[in-house]
C-alpha cells in the first residue's frame, strides 16, 4: 500500500508492532493504544520514534499523558463514509499535536482534500490510482469557508480573505 506524503509516494520507515511482539532496540514503531497504556513504563524510554495506532472509537483524551513522546498517530477509515477520524484528527490538532498524522484504510482521492484540511499529512492509500490522480485530487477546491483548517499553498480562507486586517486563524502553521 503506497504511502503518500507531500504529494509524493515515499518509503514507509514505520513498523507496526503486534501487541505481543518484543520492542526492538531502535527504529520507528507503531503500537496500539492498549499496548501504549500497558507498557508505557517500558516505552517511555524507547530510544527510537514512537507512533500509535488508534481506532476511531478511541478518545483523543486517552493520548493526553503520552502525546509529548509520540511522533506519529495513525487513524483508520474502515469505510470512506465513516467520518469519525476527521473529528479525532481535528481534535488532536486543536489540542496542539504537531507530529505526523496518518490516514489509513479506505482512503480515496475524493476525500483527500478534506483529510488534509483537518490535519492529516500522510496517507496510506489504495494502489488503484496513479500518483497524478492523488496530486490533482487534493487541489480541486481553492477556497474554504471554515477557519483554522490546514491549507495548501493554493488554498485561501474565504472569511479571512474578505476581512483583511484579520489574520487567518490557525492553531499552528503547518506545511501539510
Amino acid at each position, binding site marked *: 500500500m503506497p504511502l503518500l506524503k507531500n504529494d509524493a509516494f515515499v518509503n514507509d520507515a514505520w513498523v507496526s508492532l503486534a501487541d505481543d511482539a518484543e520492542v526492538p532496540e531502535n527504529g520507528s514503531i507503531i503500537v496500539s493504544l492498549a499496548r501504549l497504556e500497558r507498557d508505557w513504563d517500558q516505552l517511555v524510554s524507547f530510544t527510537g520514534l514512537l507512533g500509535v495506532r488508534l481506532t476511531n472509537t478511541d478518545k483523543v483524551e486517552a493520548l493526553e499523558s503520552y502525546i509529548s513522546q509520540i511522533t506519529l498517530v495513525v487513524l483508520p477509515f474502515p469505510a*470512506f*463514509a*465513516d*467520518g*469519525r477520524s*476527521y*473529528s*479525532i484528527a*481535528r*481534535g488532536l490538532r*486543536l*489540542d496542539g499535536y504537531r507530529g505526523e498524522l496518518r490516514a489509513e484504510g479506505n482512503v*480515496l482521492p*475524493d*476525500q483527500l*482534500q*478534506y*483529510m488534509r*484540511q*483537518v490535519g492529516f499529512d500522510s496517507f496510506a492509500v489504495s494502489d488503484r490510482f496513479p500518483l497524478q490522480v492523488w496530486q490533482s485530487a487534493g487541489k*480541486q*477546491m*481553492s*477556497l*474554504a*469557508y*471554515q*477557519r483554522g*483548517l490546514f491549507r495548501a499553498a493554493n488554498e*485561501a480562507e*474565504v*472569511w*479571512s*480573505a*474578505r*476581512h483583511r486586517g*484579520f489574520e487567518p*486563524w490557525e492553531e499552528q502553521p503547518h506545511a501539510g
Partner: protein
Amino acid sequence: MYRYDEFDAKFVNERTAQFRDQANRRLKGELTEDEFRPLRLMNGLYLQLHAYMLRVAIPYGTLSGAQMRQLAYIAEKWDKGYGHFTTRQNIQYNWIKLEDAADILQALADVEMHAIQTSGNCIRNVTTDHWAGAAVDELADPRPVGELIRQWSSLHPEFSYLPRKFKFAITGAPHDRAAVKVHDIGLRLHKNAAGDLGWEVLVGGGQGRTPLVAVTVREFLPQNELVAYLEAIMRVYNLYGRRDNKYKARIKILVHELGAEKFRAEVEAEYAKHPAQQTQVEEAELARIAKYFALPSFEKLSRFAPHFEDAKLSTPEFARWARNNLAAHQVDGYTIVNISLKPEGGIPGDASAEQMRVMARLAERYSHNELRVSHAQNIVLPHVRLEDAFEVWKALKEADLATANYGLAGDIIACPGLDYCSLATARSIPVAQAISRKFADLDKQQDYGPLKINISGCINACGHHHVGHIGILGLDKKGEEYYQITLGGSSSEHASIGTILGPGFAADEVPDAIETILNTYVKLRHSGEDFLSAYRRVGPKPFKEALYAAA
C-alpha cells in the same frame, strides 16, 4: 437578498468543475457506483425509481426573479417542464440524466445557486421562516445567520461524512413557522433583559421512524459564539452518533440514548476545550452578510388602501383570496402574498415553468424582486403593496395560482411518494389530490379554519405527517397500500407529535375518514376554536368513536 461575491462565485464554479470530473470518471467506469454515490449525493443527485432526481438548494428559501426564471429554464431544457418545491424549501427535478447534471449545476452557478449538500450524510440546506424580513412578530431577520451557516457548513471537511443527514432550521420570530423543534438543530432568537439578541439552541428533534421534539441545549447563546458552539455539537455527534444502524443514526437518537443532561454535558465539555476565540472575523462576516438583507426601500404608505378595499367589495373571489392568502407585513401599506401551490386536484408543490416565470415577473414588478419558498411547499411574495394586491391576484389567477386555500384543508403537504420515490411504501400524491377534491368547496374549508394535513408515503416522514394537525402515513400491507391517520401533531413553538388513531384505511377511504374527523370537530368546537386547540382540549376519543363506530 444575499449576492455572491468573487469568492462565492469561484467556490461554486470550482465545485461544478469538480463534479463534472467526478461524473465523467463515473461514466468512464473509473469510479464505482459505491464510490460515486456519496459524491453525487453531496451535489444533490439522487437515483430514484425512474431517473435521476436533482435537488437544488434554495438557501433559507429566498429567491430572486432571475433565479426563479433560471429554475424555469432548467425545468424546460433538462426536465419535463415543471419542478417540485419541497418541504426543505428546495426544488427537485425528477427526470434528470446523469450526462446533463454538470451542465445544470453550471446553469445554477450562473445565477448564484447550487445543489451542494442537498443530500448525503452532511449538513443540508438551512431552512427558515418563509416570512423572514416581513413578519410582524419578528425580533430580527434570521437569514443573515442562515447565510453564515450556509457558508460555514459548505464542504466542511470535518462534517461531510456524518453518521446521517443533518438539518438546521432557524427562526427569528416567537411564532415558529420554521418547525425548528423537529430539526436536528433548531435555533430560536430571543432578546434578554439587557436587550441583546441570542440564540436558543435546540438539538435532537426530528421525524422519520422515531419522531422526537428537540431539547434545549443552551437557553441563550451570544451570537458571536454560534459557529464555535455549532462545531462542538457537530463534533460530539460525528464522534458518538451511531453508525451501526442507519435508522438509529440521527442525532436525535444520540440525544435520546444519552439523555438530554448527558448530551448537554458532552457538548459543553467539547465547547469548553475549544471555546469561541478570535470571533472578530465571524462578526465582521455576519455584519457584511446582514447588509444584503437590509429592508428594501419601502414607500411611506397609508395603512388604508382604497383601491384594495374597493377591489374586495367588487370582486368577492378576490376578497376571499385576500382574507386567506395575505398576511400582515411589518410596514404599513404592504402585505405578504402567499401563493398556494395546491390547486384543487393538483400535485402539492409542483409548478410549471410558465408558472415559475409568472411568479418571477410578479416578484420583479411588485415584491422588490424577492420570492420565498415555504416549507409547506408554497411560494411567497414577501413585500407587496396592498394597492398592488389586486393586480397580483389577477395575474396569479390567470396562471392558475390563485387558489384561496393557504393554511386551510386544501393546503396539504405531501412527499413525492411511490409515484417517484424508491423508498416509498405507498403513494402520497393521489391521496392529496383526492382530499383536495373532496374539500374543493372553499366555504367549507374556511369553516374548518386553520388546518395542516400532512401526508407521507413512508415511515421516513418527508411529508411531515407526525406534525400535521391531521397526519396521514402511507404503508404497505401485503402489497396493498393503506393509510394510518394521526391527530394533534404540530411543528409550531408548541410542537407535538401526532397520536395514531387506530387501524388504517384504504386509499379511497381516506377522504371520507378526514371528513368524519372534521365534522366531529365542527360539532364539538367552542366558538372560534381551531382544530388543533379543540383536539388538544378533548383528546382523540371522540374522533376515534366517530371513525370506528361503524366497524
